[in-house]
């Protein structure tokens, strides 16, 4: 958690954790080099096709993905704000066509008995921005709001 994470910012945070059967050092590597990032960053069907990384505090990073349509999407990127080897990477991130809409992402790696808990913490600039990106303030995965939305869309498609 970054130092500025407190109760007041909970409505503009998104925290996702995952446990990996690998040492923190390897996960840190996977996050820090383009050759690795190219292999896993982004959802399935959206390969990273631009990846420039100056991995040091104050260094900049820049990426873009290409969607199923074959066209490269708007590049996004930012600056590395803090790097603690094998433990923590903090960077900001914004789309190049909308630089004021920034998010600060903090990735932490906590290793225990060869397994590592990765925490992906995103701090949005406002609750409204979080809602816009994550959707009605609901976390990814199981949630009734989005399921309802999906149902409505399915009904629409059927009616069309």
């Amino acid at each position, binding site marked *: 958690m970054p130092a500025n994470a407190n109760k007041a910012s909970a409505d503009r945070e998104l925290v996702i954790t995952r446990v990996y059967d690998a040492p923190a050092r390897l996960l840190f590597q996977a996050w820090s080099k383009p050759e690795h990032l190219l292999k896993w960053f982004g959802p399935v069907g959206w390969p990273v096709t631009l990846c420039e990384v100056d991995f040091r505090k104050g260094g900049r990073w820049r990426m873009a993905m290409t969607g199923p349509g074959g066209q490269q999407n708007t590049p*996004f990127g930012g600056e590395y704000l803090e790097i603690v080897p094998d433990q923590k990477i903090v960077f900001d991130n914004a789309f190049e066509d909308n630089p004021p809409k920034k998010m600060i992402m903090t990735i932490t790696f906590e290793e225990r008995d060869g397994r590592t808990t990765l925490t992906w913490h995103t701090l949005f600039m406002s609750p409204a921005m979080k809602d816009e990106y994550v959707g009605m303030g609901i976390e990814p995965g199981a949630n009734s709001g989005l399921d309802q*939305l999906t149902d*409505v869309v399915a009904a629409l498609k059927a009616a069309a």
Partner: protein
Amino acid sequence: MIPAATPPLDLVFAALADPTRRAILARLAAGEATVNELVTPTALSQPTVSKHLKVLERAGLVSRGREAQFRPVRLNAAPLAEADRWLGDYRRFFTESLDRLDTYVKELKRKEGRHASKRK
């Protein structure tokens, strides 16, 4: 990361963040209806339904006929489909990236193990 939403999408999300408005949309998916026909199943007052319809209209999700007395309300599917696609992609961004990282880090681990045993 999927590009930031355009302003109309903000309105779409705001309009969808309400169960009554989603119910109205679900009803309209079955066909156009007058305001009165929408009042009955929602058990709300006519002015309340009208208020919700204004929000949906601003978001481009419904359009209303010109005929003053009946003014049938029609569903406009395009912004909704776009909102769904956008949300779906953004949700996928986190979960699928982390899934793929799992696969990849296993590969790194295996490679490292091979190098280590070669060195012995």
